């Protein structure tokens, strides 16, 4: 029984279905339980949370990743699956502490002050949630001080800063300096991204990592999380 549900979760991750209303890659799935409903059922059935994450969600995303590498899946497929995993993780997160399953870290995301663009940031948020991270998205046009305050309050392992404009990317430097001034800089890894940013720019403002695109940003986070370089 447990194995059946885990297999269904895995399959629905591959299909990129968050809820029963969603289409999948194949016909005839609308109305069938999807990742959200199946995960809820698995929790109710007291199925081991580690197994849900590993055999259902992670193995499903592994297949999606392989299909993406093989050019069988495209970015929308990857994002749909990541969104499904993110929704499942939202359901699982309150139960993780008492079950002894280690949660992945928390990341704060923000489009910096003056910048209203958020498509790239939102894609990164979906992918990070799909990878099991807890994401606190502060939105767009975020004051530097608000980012500092959020770091103090949420104690995240990462801060991701996004900017689309050359005129707003300077606020990223303000943020690293403000974190430094408030004594929080050493507690958090700062990753920057967005069209005008570069690896060199990231280094110049003292950031820990640079995400060239959404998928690269995830790799950078994973690398920093395991003690590597950004």
């Amino acid at each position, binding site marked *: 029984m447990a194995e059946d549900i885990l297999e269904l979760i895995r399959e629905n991750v591959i299909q990129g279905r968050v809820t029963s209303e*969603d289409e999948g890659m194949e016909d005839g799935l609308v109305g069938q339980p999807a990742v959200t409903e199946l995960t809820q059922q698995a929790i109710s059935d007291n199925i081991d949370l580690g197994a849900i994450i590993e055999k259902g969600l992670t193995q499903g995303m592994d297949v999606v990743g392989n299909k993406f590498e093989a050019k069988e899946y*495209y970015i*929308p497929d990857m*994002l749909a699956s990541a*969104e499904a995993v993110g929704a499942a993780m939202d359901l699982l997160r309150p139960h993780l502490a008492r079950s002894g399953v280690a949660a992945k870290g928390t990341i704060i995301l923000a489009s910096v002050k003056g910048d209203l663009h958020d*498509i790239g940031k*939102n894609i990164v948020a979906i992918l990070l949630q799909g990878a099991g991270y807890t994401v606190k998205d502060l939105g767009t046009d975020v004051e530097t001080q608000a980012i500092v305050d959020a770091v103090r309050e949420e104690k995240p392992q990462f801060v991701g800063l996004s900017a689309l404009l050359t005129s707003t990317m300077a606020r990223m430097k303000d943020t690293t300096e403000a974190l430094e001034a408030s004594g929080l800089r050493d507690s958090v890894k700062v990753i920057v991204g967005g069209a005008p940013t570069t690896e060199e720019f990231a280094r110049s403002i003292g950031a820990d990592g640079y995400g060239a695109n959404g998928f690269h940003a995830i790799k950078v986070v994973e690398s920093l999380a395991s003690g590597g370089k950004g």
Partner: protein
Amino acid sequence: MARAGVLVRPYERLSLEQVERIHRSSLAILMDPGILCYNSEAAQVFGDHGADVRRIDESTPACWHVLMPEKLVSQALAAAPRVVKLGARDEDNCLILDGREPRIRFASGSEANNWLDVDVETFVSKRDSRTEVELPVFRVERGTVERLGTAARLCEGLDSWDSFLRNVNIQDEDITDANKDVNKFFASLNNTTKHVMSGLTDLGQLDNVLNMARIIAGGEDAFRDNPIISMITCTVKSPLQLVDDTAQTAMEIARRGIPLVISSSPQGGSTAPIQEDGMVAQINAEIIAGIVMAQLVKKGAPVLYGSVPVRARMDDLCDSYGVPEFNQYNIDCVQMARYYELPCYSTAGISDVKVPGIQASVERLFSHMLVAMSGPQYIHYAFGLLERTNTFCPVQAVLDDAHIGMVKAFLKQPSVTDEDVSQSLGQVRRVMQTSHKLYVRFVRRMLHSGEIAPPYPFEGGDMTDEVLIRARQGMDEILSLPPHHIDKDTVDRVFREVPGLLPRLKDL
């Protein structure tokens, strides 16, 4: 099943009032000044059916002045079929051309003397010898029967290429006027399962060609049901002169009931008025004259309204296909054909320049797009033609296939049903409930069904234009696929029963 083509909502330059005015102008031309007819049988046929036909005294060659009354024209236009089927070796590739339905298909054309190969060579920077770049270089070859077969194989492998109109003039040492027709038809038919169209070099070869087509189609009845070949005749030399040999050819083809393009190709500014109304009225009169002739020799003969109007360059009086007027003339002709409810053989996709590149792309995509928007049933010249119509370049044809694919994708009819609207509203409402506000998950069905156009297929690296190199690779891939030849028994029978075929074509 037939190739679907794309049904378009036609763009029209001319109002109905303007179409009718041009129609009346064409009728007036056919009565005054009328046409000059250099074929005695055609003159006789016109005279027998009520035209005013007078021999021009002591003209050499013999010439008749033909004035066509409106009634004769109206009856002939009414007799021509509204629907013409162009069959194919693979019946799924046949084309049903309905003059009342603006459904577009694209074909090749011309009979180019030159074949332009594209090679890729590595060049070293003079400024920095460590910098190397791969660039296309061009090599002009002569048209041969092997190359014609290669072009037909390319047609077979390219999705947007709906029909193979022979595009290479075969100039082999062992090709003569007496064997050219059978060899060009065989080389074409043996390398594509799509419809094959061609002109005829020697009327004496007509029945040999038809015999070949009957054998390949599976017999007389099968060929009638599925005419795997059709023919083109440019019956008129502009302005307003019915040519002796092509008129004779047209009549013989019409008598045999083979689908026939009656085409005319006046040049605005030299052999036709340059102004739009005058050009269109004249070419319309010329095409009508040919259609009347075909219907008089065989009522109901399947004909296509073949419009190939061009404009003269003012620096050398050569044809110019890249100018806006070319598109204006052609779109107007499509409208005239639709007014008569006749399938239209139209013209687009040629460039004046000799080699692929920016000018070629601009010129040909301009007309691919605009003429297609007007909804002709059969657009010829659309693949690979450069240097006006003198050169065929297979790599250019690969590019054209991709560009025409984009044109077809653009011209697809929109779907806005109640169900569509309901689904879209559902998407909007769901996305607005999310934190990310992105519609990407809803892209997937259309993405995987092919409804969403892919990126430009020949895109290069960051700072390089690799279009021709990648198109060349695309051509090589297609030509590496196994050919769709006619089965061996049928080929053997064709070679036994049809004289003049070159033995080496058996293995081509």
